[in-house]
């Protein structure tokens, strides 16, 4: 009898699987071309930073203060003053979408400014909330900066230095330029590994069913876990290979810093592939059809990785119940570690925790997959 793991059968199936991967252009496309496309997309195409927003400016006051504030706006690196006109005309431009918002410096601004006051009006396009709040807060920022730079504010005698009671001196660590690609590109690696681990694995098993090869190998002494192992090992290697390509691209093409150690990256990525592959196996145990397998993998693995892992959207700003869901998305534990290893350096305390959670999920998925796979046709 052949109840135990047999190395000959395992290596035979492993060789078969490897040949199939190498001969199937679509597998290699998913493993290498798709990651490159994603990295380029997130590196160049998707940019969550706002730079030089187009605004309008309406100066209704002739005072020196108004003029210098106007200059402050024009020289701001956050705004591009595209139009200088009266408020009505700017309103129309805003509606037409030529500008994102406008600033009105009102008639008595100079007088008020001398008394230490002076308000400006900021109008922004609320239909794109992100941009609107950006325009509002940065406009206020420009005004504050301008205010602080005027020695004669509050009517004091010139030359008497003014020290604000509290000053905030903020420094951004690790990503001083707040360049979004610095955290998007590591996130893309998570997406790519999800695709290889869950989608590809589920697909290749469904393919065996569709082509009728599954029933042929099931009728040989091959054991269920031998088959599962030959599906896991090659795609584990493929996942790591693809991760390496992504990392090299990220560092050498996009200049993303890599402050941690390759060993940490390898450990984190390997740990994540365990639940990803487990999920792929679990999906394949429930469906024998490539189309259904791909749909299920996209919905349960790819989309959560994209939306709920903290890769594109910050988890802390999600509604509470959505935050609760993110705890069962394995890539939620990958993204922070991955970003840390790229942008900060090794933090084994954090990595250890995340790795443990990911392996825990992996064990759960594998247990489910083994429980759900029956070594029978019907």
């Amino acid at each position: 009898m052949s109840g135990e793991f047999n190395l000959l059968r395992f290596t035979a199936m492993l060789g078969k699987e490897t040949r199939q991967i190498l001969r199937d252009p679509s597998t290699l496309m998913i493993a290498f071309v798709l990651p490159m496309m994603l990295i380029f997309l997130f590196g160049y195409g998707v940019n969550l930073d706002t730079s030089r927003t187009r605004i309008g400016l309406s100066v209704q006051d002739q005072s020196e203060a108004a003029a210098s504030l106007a200059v402050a706006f024009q020289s701001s690196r956050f705004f591009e003053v595209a139009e200088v006109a009266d408020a009505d005309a700017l309103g129309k431009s805003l509606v037409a979408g030529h500008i994102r918002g406008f600033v009105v410096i009102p008639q008595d601004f100079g007088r008020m400014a001398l008394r230490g006051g002076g308000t400006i009006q900021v109008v922004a396009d609320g239909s794109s909330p992100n941009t609107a709040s950006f325009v509002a807060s940065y406009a206020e920022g420009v005004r504050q900066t301008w205010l602080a730079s005027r020695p004669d504010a509050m009517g004091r005698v010139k030359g008497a230095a003014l020290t604000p009671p509290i000053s905030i001196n903020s420094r951004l660590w690790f990503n001083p330029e707040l360049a979004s690609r610095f955290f998007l590109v590591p996130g893309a690696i998570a997406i790519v590994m999800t695709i290889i681990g869950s989608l590809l694995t589920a697909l290749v098993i469904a393919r065996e069913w569709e082509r009728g090869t599954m029933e042929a190998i099931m009728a040989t002494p091959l054991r269920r876990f031998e088959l599962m192992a030959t599906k896991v090992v090659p795609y584990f290697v493929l996942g790591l290979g693809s991760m390496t390509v992504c990392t090299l691209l990220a560092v050498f093409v996009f200049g993303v810093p890599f402050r941690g150690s390759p060993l940490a990256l390898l450990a984190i990525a390997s740990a994540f592939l365990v639940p990803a592959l487990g999920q792929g196996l679990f999906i394949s145990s429930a469906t024998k059809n490539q189309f259904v397998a791909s749909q299920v993998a996209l919905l349960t693995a790819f989309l959560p990785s994209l939306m709920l892992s903290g890769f594109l959207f910050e988890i802390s700003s999600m509604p509470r119940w959505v935050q609760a869901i993110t705890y069962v998305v394995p890539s939620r534990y990958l993204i922070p570690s991955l970003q840390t290893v790229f942008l900060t350096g090794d933090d084994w305390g954090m990595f250890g925790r995340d790795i443990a959670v990911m392996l825990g999920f992996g064990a759960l998925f594998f247990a489910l997959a083994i429980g759900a796979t029956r070594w029978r046709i019907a």
Partner: protein
Amino acid sequence: MADEVASATGIVKRFGATLALDDVGIEVRKGLMTGLVGPDGAGKTTLIRILAGLIDPDADEAMALGSAATKADHSRIGYMPQRFGLYEDLTVIENLRLYADLRGLDRETREENFAHLLEFTDLGRFQSRLAGKLSGGMKQKLGLACALVRQPDLLLLDEPGVGVDPVSRRELWQMVRELTGEGVGVLWSTAYLDEAEACDTVFLLSEGKMLHAGPPGDLLARVEGRVFRLPVPATERRTTLAHLLDRDDVADGTLQGEGVRLLMREAGPPEGVAGQAVPAKPRFEDGFIDVLGAKVSGTSGLAEAYRLIPASDTPAIEARGLTKRFGDFTAAQDISFAVQRGQIFGLLGPNGAGKSTTFKMLCGLLTPSSGAGSVAGFDLRHARADARQSLGYMAQKFSLYGDLSVKQNLDFFSGIYGLKGAARRAAIERVNAIFHLENYSSVNAGTLPLGFKQRLALACAVMHEPPVLFLDEPTSGVDPIVRREFWSHINGLVEKGVTVLVTTHFMDEAEYCDRIALIYRATQIATGTPDELKAQTGSETMEDAFIALIEAADRLREAA
């Protein structure tokens, strides 16, 4: 029993509401060829999979090699599933190596076995070719080689002969026969009843029930002395058959060349017939029909209600040098024939020979690379829509909408053929009554029994009473009674002047055709009446004639 390699008794298996196997028993013995015979949906595949340990039966247990089928030593069982189970992106030798390793064959015996199997299957030259690039017959042999890579004690073959050409089928049969000589117990499942005849012992399965178990001779003995051939002039054979089938003393009848083949209820020749009835050799199918006990009337309600197609001088279907190339691959080369009104013309050939391509060009579904054709007088190049309107098309596998009910399918097809209002209602009512579809009217077509699917497909194709019918493998997989009923309708329609173009791989069905074109490797290698083709090759049956013609064509190719 000592020489028993697989057995089962009282097997029951349900899939949802359908009872696939109902109290079925089987026994496969060492050194014998055991046939598992029955139409599609009879439960053959389910039973084989149970013996292979791939399905758990609901009741009772199957045994293989002395232990429960699911726990049997699979290294000693060879199993070839219907689709051969080959990895198409691996080469011939890689497939063999994989299955050798999976069955735990040691390295030394391995090379020896490979050499033997490659010679046995004649695949030696193609060792490094990808399995996906092999022809159907070669795939089938490789599938067998993979199942045999470690000499098994039990060999389970699930419809190994389906869809491949008769030459490959015969070669495969001989190869497996050799194995039984070496002591292998073989279970060969098939829908071809002629294959059953050649088995040592046969299990006949129909709708999940075992109808017969024992040597095929037992079944033939039932009908001994009751089978006769009555010569009839070609022009009258269809009407004669219809009349004879309506007689109470006739149990079954088919066309055979210039004559009618009859199965009588009692021993003794038919009385009161013109011409001399001569005793004929009983066939397995006669026994099957006798066991089933049902009889099909010779009169077709469909034909009686059908309009009379007016006579015409021009051929109803004509192909003139039809050729279709896909890139540098020629799928059909210079196909030419003409079919007169009220005739049945058959296109015969193995899968992939070019039958369907020819068919699709004549339907206007494919544009010929060169050559011309016409249907009901309409030129395919200029009046495709008119040509299509005047033909009824029954596609392979009965292309119905499985998710629509019977009524919705009828509504839809009558609509696309342009039937409206009262005419549509009348047509639907008519086919409902003729094909007994009323009780199924709200059942989804996909869940109908195969025989009813076929009836519905025919109903959909003839509602608009076209002068020309195109039937692509119309009786594939259905049981002989349903086939009889189908041909009774077709024969009746032909008498009304309908012209029929049919493809089939049942050689005995070729006998229903007035003329036949044999298509092999994209070329038309022979054309003539069934009797002419048989005479030309000195063969007794269509199958033998077919094989002789193919072999002659192959010799010609090799000489060139």
